[in-house]
């Protein structure tokens, strides 16, 4: 009953209108795949609705949704790495972005580093979260996130350079 009351307080339509675009952009940057990003964004809200009792403070709904989205994105990146070992399989047939050399270089560089590092980099450099905020989102210490970002940055730039990125 308590969970239901919390849920009743959450205006999901408004949350969706307020944060769906931002989360979709985050997931698109993280996965480099439009269909996957759209899918994961919706899944983020579905999981949120299902587990809404876990949100103690409705005012932090945005950060909580980012937590869910990051978890789903990390899982997808891990699974993608396994699938990538299967020869000739390429799921990136999105004609809208499969077609941009720079986007491909970014996407492949993010996939070349660890999913945890990729999440931390995108949250920090693209979405503007501080190291402390990322630590809260992911349940890690500040030091761990600082290290993750530093290592991830070096690994990403090396991979990005190998793939011909020009940014």
């Amino acid at each position, binding site marked *: 009953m308590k969970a239901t009351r919390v849920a009743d307080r959450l205006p999901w339509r408004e949350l969706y209108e307020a944060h769906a675009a931002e989360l979709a952009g985050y997931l698109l940057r993280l996965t480099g795949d439009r269909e996957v990003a759209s899918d994961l964004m919706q899944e983020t809200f579905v999981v949120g609705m299902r587990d809404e009792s876990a949100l103690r403070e409705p005012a932090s709904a945005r950060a909580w949704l980012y937590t869910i989205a990051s978890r789903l994105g990390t899982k997808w990146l891990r699974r993608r790495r396994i699938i990538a070992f299967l020869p000739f399989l390429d799921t990136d047939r999105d004609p809208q972005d*499969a077609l941009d050399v720079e*986007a491909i270089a970014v996407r492949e560089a993010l996939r070349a580093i660890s999913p945890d590092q990729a999440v931390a980099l995108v949250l920090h450099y693209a979405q503007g979260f501080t190291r402390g905020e990322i630590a809260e989102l992911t349940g890690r210490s500040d030091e761990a996130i600082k290290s993750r970002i530093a290592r991830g940055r070096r690994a990403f730039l090396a991979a990005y350079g190998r793939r011909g990125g020009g940014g």
Partner: protein
Amino acid sequence: MNDERDEEERLERILRRPAHLDLPPFEQLAKRRSGSPLARSLALTLATVVVAVAALFAGRELSAFRQQAAGPGETTSPTASANASASATPRPSLPPPIPQPITRNSPAAQIAWVSVNPPQGAPASFIGVDPKGKIVGRLDAGLGHFWRSADGSQLFVVGDQVNAYSASDGALLRSYGPTPGGAVLDAAFSSDGRWLALLGSLAYVQVIDLQSGLSQVTPLGHDPNASHPGLTMSGQTNALTWSTLVFAPDSKRLYTIVDWGSPLRLTAFNVTASGLVQVAAAIDGQAGQKFPSCPGPGIAPKVVTGGRTLAVFCHFDGKVWFFDLTTLTSTGVVQADMRNPFWLAPIFTPDGQLLYLHQYPAFGDVMQVIDLRTQALLGPLPTPQKLTDPGPFAWLFPVANAGGTPSTVPVSPDGLRLYAAANDGITVLRIPDLKPLAKIATGAQIGEVWISGDGSTVFATDQSRALLVIAADGSQTRVNQDNLGSFVASERG
């Protein structure tokens, strides 16, 4: 510290690329909530395994095909070689199509005009067929060369006179007076519909203002001692045997290309209310220019990349030339794979980003595509036929050896689909990756295809014996007519 700050700034630049998605409506979430995550996960896993196994087989077949297609002893262009050496780097990309507005909405623009060529000297004609399959008009093909106006509503017939006929019923609408004489080699309409430019064998460009009816003739520079391999031109030693012309997309520039039998000459004109004004010319072998040349009469030009580049396809050797139009210099040549002259149909997408080259099904149904921005070539690859096939150009590397009749693969007016004639009907393919979207007219032996001005009706010739009229709902009308030839289309191939 400075290095770290530089790295941080660089990473922000790289990762903060715009990332926008079209959002599904909120109501769609309700459907997802009712779905079982476990079932979805299992289905995804199963699908992944199936796709992987299928891909293993497909990849092996593809590898064999590409080795066969490359063939020994064929030449490669510097661009193509560069593509080959780049095969270890990230694959090239194709630009997403830019949807074009549908402008040919008039009833006349929906009427197909197709030639009928009886054997044994009987007079040839053009017939007009409406979307219901009714023959609505007929014109004598002997009147002259037929061209269709940019808006699709009129047929311009150029002989001794320039006459305009209604595409609705073939009625004469207006006469624009005589041509200067000799043969008219080619014609072009400006995209704004105002100008018709004709290029004559007696080395002139005639521009007609279709609003006022006024006409202006401008001499065209050419080599007076041109030789025409394999031809004798009695009494016309100074004539042009093959040349072409093309407007820029903004209708303010006209370019002429004089080729074959003489050094290639590229001339730029400003199109003004009072006529043409030559603004620049460049000639092979002069002022340090080195231009390619087509070994036979047959080139198809298009001004692309927003008016900055001229791309020209040579029907004889499958080469595609690129010229920078700001400097009138050659910027590259891409060699497409073409075993014999005229085996490829060149189709420029209306947004000017891609050139598809379709090898007619009778010669082996394959596709190539050239990204006109980067001059990268993809293919050749078998044209996909099954709706379950992936789009081949979405995931392939370019091949080292790269490289008709345009109406074997017309492009839809919105620029988003190709209609590829196949040995078993028409395959509708998505631009740019050629993912098959639908099959229509299944079972027919398709010759040529034309799409109505608004894109809602497909006309196709079946074994030259019947015209198939296919409506948007898939319903089909068959118009029995022997000796069918080709369509008169607004678009240049």
